[in-house]
């Protein structure tokens, strides 16, 4: 699925009525693993473009981009989650998210390998992820969603910055 189609789908989805307890998740790939994020948090999807580096920032912060006049930070989710780094390719995309941090809405881009699909998952289908010990990143995992024979890692990225 290409970016235009997905963006079009995003637009339609927001107007559709959702059955109770059903949420839709945009899924994407990183290192052959499929992740999902609440679609209502997704503002748009963009191809990767070069960023302006922020001095003395953590490695996973790629920099800032100009999103139609707004300065938006972009983070590399692979680096954030300590997954092996890869070269960016033509399918590398930036998912622009609207997150809430300390009560304020912040816009942020995350770099992922590729976007995949949109799935509806009811809350009952979400399993609590098994305790992953003291891994710092486990707090970003909302749970595991089961769709057919696939298991999606559902993320909650509010405090990822």
């Amino acid at each position, binding site marked *: 699925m290409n970016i235009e189609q997905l963006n079009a789908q995003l637009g339609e989805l927001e107007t559709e009525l959702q059955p109770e307890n059903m949420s839709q998740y945009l899924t994407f790939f990183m290192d052959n693993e499929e992740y999902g994020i609440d679609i209502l948090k997704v503002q748009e999807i963009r191809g990767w473009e*070069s*960023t*302006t*580096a*922020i*001095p*003395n*920032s953590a490695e996973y912060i790629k*920099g*800032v*981009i*100009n999103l139609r*006049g*707004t*300065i*938006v*930070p972009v983070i590399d989710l692979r680096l954030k989650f300590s997954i092996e780094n890869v070269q960016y390719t033509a399918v590398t995309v930036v998912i622009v998210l609207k997150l809430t941090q300390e009560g304020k809405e*912040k*816009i*942020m881009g995350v770099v992922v390998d590729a976007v995949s699909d949109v799935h509806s998952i009811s809350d009952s289908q979400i399993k609590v992820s098994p305790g992953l010990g003291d891994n710092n990143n486990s707090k970003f995992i909302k749970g595991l969603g089961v769709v057919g024979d696939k298991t999606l890692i559902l993320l909650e990225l509010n405090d990822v*910055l």
Partner: protein
Amino acid sequence: MSIDLSQFYEVFFEESFEGLDAMESELLNLEPGTPDNETINTIFRAAHSIKGGSGTFGFSAVADFTHVVETLLDQIRDGQRQLTQVQIDLFLQSVDCLREMLSALRDSEEPDTQEAQALKAQFEAILAGDELAGLESNQVTPDDSSNTAVEEESRLGWQIQFKPGKDILKTGNEPIYMLQELGEIGDVELDINLDFVPTLETIEAEDCYFNWDIKLKSDCDLAKVDEVFEWVVDDCEINITPLETLVSAVDEEVSENATELGQAPAAEAITPAVEPENQDSSPAQSAKVTESTPAKKDNAPKNAEASSIRVGIEKVDSLINMVGELVITQAMLTQLSEGDFDKAKLVSLQEGLAQLAHNTRDLQESVMRIRMLPISFVFSRFPRLVRDTSKKLGKQIELKLLGEQTELDKTVMEKISDPMVHLVRNAMDHGLETTEERIASGKSEVGSITLNAFHQGGNIVIEIIDDGKGLNTEKIKQKAIANGLITENSDLTDEEINLLIFEPGFSTADQVSDLSGRGVGMDVVRRNIQALNGSVELASTPGEGSTFTIRLPLTLAILDGQLIRVGEHIYIIPLVNIIESLQINLEDVNCVGGEYDVLRLRDEYIPIIRLFDLFNHEPDSKKMEDGLLVVVEHDNEKIGILVDELLAQQQVVIKSLEANYMKVEGVSGATILGDGTVSLIIDISGAIKLAGLKKSVRRSIEKAVVDLESA
């Protein structure tokens, strides 16, 4: 039909605050005695519209209070009463009180009516002719008692001449309703006067030609009758007199009732429920209220940052014109792109683009101008401040305002006001001497404070000048030594010592007074000004006075920047900070303590910050001689920033980095360059801090260098 009035609240509050400002400034112009009619009228009109509006919106506390204010104003306007200083003070207090009540209402809070009650009681005492009650004045106006008496005691009826203006129907007022309303008050005898009705062919159906003589038989008071005509009083001729046959009876009663006139029935009629509390409250409460006022006032200005802006229509018109031009240019360019493109069109295309650039720049300028307001908005609060403070301090102070029409950005204006208040207070408290001291030193006994604003380059400069005793350099030095800011043998010039007052934790006041010396010192003033990308300077001559000079950018939205490059990264240094750029001659560089490089430039030693080190970037070359040094100034200290290359200079629009990210050390914001990429703006003071070059470090560096040289 019910209309949701709340949608008009904002406009009402805005207008009311404007009205209060107008009242305040006019009140300050008033002199006791027979005032200028136009001045009183302005005050009256402002009070009147606040009363009308608050009545309409159901803010009865405000309306009731304003009513007594207005009544007294009305009497002064009609010359029934002499204006006294006590009354002026009382009016000013009422302005404060109203402002507080309205602020509370705007924030959807219940207004604190205590102060209003106390003030109202004082007004009522004045209206009742008893000026001495609770006040220290001994000026009693001679014709007081007769006037009030007539007003209050003619309770058997009123003779009203009501002559509506011709246009009254067009303003949505209907005389019939008013007559009906009078009918509700009491028995009405109407005499209609048809003398002004023209012949049928010249009659204008929408004009009102009638006027009435009305005899109202009722025991109501004047205020009640006034209320009926409240909205039309400016458009109509209305003459209300007590019914003639009753006047003589009234006069007799005056002397008997004199003691009962403690409060004005005029107001009583409107607020019967509130009145009883009033009677015993006035002296005790007025004392209490004065105590609590300062604390409350401190909060007030914070809420006052209005979210809307009033723009002169000519500014909007010019905008519309420019947008029109832009549309035309756009149409022209679209036309060019139609059909085949050949070389012949190239010239027109270039012309079109040039025109587009021109339009865009003009448009940008006019849009920025919308946010620009004359600085008189800030200056206007000072006459009051100076007046009140001079009284408190027992000093005679004259305030001069210059350059009030100088324009600056609204956001800058809002933030500069508090630091300015602080500086002016300081000047009055510490700067100006007492009257005796002034006479002793052969100066005029009236101290003067001058506020002067003007444009200089892309900056606005505000000067606060006093002709007082100047800074006490010796005392500042002692204090600084005591505070450990400098040491006994620090070698500082007088100017440098004077600048120490801007350091945190520094107050020269021997005693903490009500006005200054409360710990919120000059360091806060300087920090606030620096937060606006501005600077504050100080010049002082002992015995002649001091001048504080505040320099601010005209707007916070745009700055002139120098683009610089380090490796593949492009940054912007604000042009105001840059003094010069130069190539480094290695012979002039000393390395101090193996850590800091210092460049000897003419007679100064300038610490060098390597931007690639500071920001962790890969430069073209790490060698100093390959790069360029941008010498910047901050806080009167010079720093050299080593970069790879200087690029263009351009105006940049400042965008927030914090909105979606967080504060970054050494970076004040971001902007978008012509090619759409983001570039970060370097914050000089942050960069200096990041480099660990605090003042103390810099001083020791300088010292080390000097030692090095001499060795």
